[in-house]
């Protein structure tokens, strides 16, 4: 690379530019935390909001999340509801300077201004509120036994307090789901089964030459079918919701690797679930 400053703005050509070692060390930390995302310790606190029916606080690295469940409380809609209505609100702290949220969410009017701000963010890291909300809605409506709460509404609030640049959106998504799952369990609201959500990034063995990893996010429960054989039992998992983000490599055929990545995700999900359920069991 040619470092000579033709316009001489930086002074004579033999001048040494200022260096900022602190920035470099920062990026080192980020890199290590990326690799060890799944190995990081998860801090969980339940029932930390006394007025809520159920709540949970999660910390993983620099990611702080608060989820709370209110209800069932009376819903005053005109129409008759034979089951509870779910309302889910996602809120990210306004001081998340390091991250930009989706432009359309914040202000529709000045789309153009925001587009430019957004442009320097890798799409893998951009927080897309609509995906969070739609997956949460699907997952919760599949999980909660809404029939048991006619004419009621259940409100779920998720607050993203802090995150960092090294957490991918999809990893954040699974954390959000975990927080909501735990808050629901804490609330005592009737649910079908013990849920757990995970992001599985399996670097598929078939395309090992390319460094691309196909990622899949699932939030799953065990079905009502049980099998003694562990391999067979993998088929007895049910997905509450799933999301496959844009893959880094467009050439891989998603479908061919999907089966393996789902199986892999289910295995990881089960492992997480056994730990979470042990945690909840001990809390009793």
């Amino acid at each position, binding site marked *: 690379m040619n470092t000579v400053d033709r316009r001489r703005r930086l002074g004579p050509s033999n001048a040494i530019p200022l260096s900022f070692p602190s920035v470099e060390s920062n990026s080192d930390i980020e890199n290590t935390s990326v690799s060890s995302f799944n190995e990081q310790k998860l801090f969980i606190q339940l029932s930390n909001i006394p007025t809520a029916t159920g709540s949970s606080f999660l910390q993983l690295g620099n990611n702080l999340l608060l989820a709370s469940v209110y209800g069932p409380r009376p819903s005053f809609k*005109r*129409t008759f509801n034979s*089951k509870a209505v*779910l309302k889910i609100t996602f809120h990210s702290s306004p001081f998340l300077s390091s991250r930009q949220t*989706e432009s*359309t*969410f914040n202000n*529709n009017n000045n*789309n153009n201004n925001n*587009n*430019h701000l*957004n*442009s320097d963010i890798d*799409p893998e890291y951009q927080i*897309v*509120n*609509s*995906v969070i*909300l*739609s*997956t949460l*809605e*699907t997952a919760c*409506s*599949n*999980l909660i036994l*809404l029939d048991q709460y006619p004419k009621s509404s259940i409100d779920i609030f998720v607050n993203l307090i802090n995150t960092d640049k090294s957490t991918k959106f999809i990893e954040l998504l699974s954390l959000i789901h975990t927080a909501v799952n735990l808050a629901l369990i804490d609330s005592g609201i009737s649910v*079908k089964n013990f849920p757990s959500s995970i992001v599985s990034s399996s670097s598929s063995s078939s395309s090992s030459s390319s460094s691309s990893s196909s990622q899949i996010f699932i939030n*799953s*429960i065990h*079905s009502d079918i049980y099998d003694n054989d562990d391999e067979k039992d993998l*088929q007895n*998992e*049910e*997905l*509450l*919701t*799933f*999301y*496959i*983000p*844009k*893959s880094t490599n*467009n050439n891989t*055929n*998603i*479908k061919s690797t*999907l*089966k393996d990545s*789902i*199986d892999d995700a*289910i295995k990881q999900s089960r492992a997480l679930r056994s730990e979470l359920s042990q945690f909840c069991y001990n809390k009793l």
Partner: protein
Amino acid sequence: MVLSVAESAFIYDSLVSSHPSRPDSRKPTQYRPLKANCGFLPNSNGSSRIYNPDGTECISSVKAKVIRSNNISDLINVEINIFGEKDNTTLCQHLTTLIKESLNDSFDFNALKLTDKYYFQLYIDISILYLPEDFRYSSYTFYSILSLISMGVYLALKSAKLPLLVSDKKDFEVEEEPTFSDDWEVSSYLIPRDSISTFQPALVFIVGIAGNTVIIDPSLEEEHVLEHGVCVTWSNSKITTPIQSLALSTSNNKAIKPNLVIKSMDLVEQVAGDVINALNTISEQEIDEFDVVF
């Protein structure tokens, strides 16, 4: 649509049986009849109108604007307007995100490149003119219209024409604004029609799941009893992202078995070719008169 317990149980049972039968006697791979026209809006580069027999109607328009930027993620803008819905609802945002994401993934941005500095920026405006009354005040989510929107966008993009550039293509050294030919006769299609340089914009398919049955293009009655919905994107002859589970209605939701995700992709692979062929045929019909469409 509010179905009685007996009605929905009947529809559900006939869907999940070993030989699935749908209420309107369609095959699992069969669409409802659709009508579509394109290229009829005189003041937009490309446009389409597509409607379902149940009255759901979607008008899309593509407008191009010259901008001086080379940021790929800026080049496609999508805005969805749903009759009776606010712009900032989760639904509108999510549909916008999904359409935009699918297009960004599949688009060949060389088609938008004018010169080294200038690009065409596309504004895709989608308007849902009418939704059946049953949709409102009931358990339906609107996600099923995603498939219609996606087909509308596909047609609009296919029919979009861009004016011919008359100024020099290489403006890296020279500061020059691009100029275009006034003659629309020499305009070229945004998506080239020749087989070498062409590409397909993404199509989003909505697949409904009940029991072990997967069906394409669920009707209102079916959505009421479906356990899960999956949106699968298809572009350039293969399945791409975004792939996501969606709740089509909140009345009978259940979690899905992982093998059904694969099964729904098989279904999309089965029908996608036919759908694309049909849409291409429509887009190649020339519309001369504005009134012919209506």
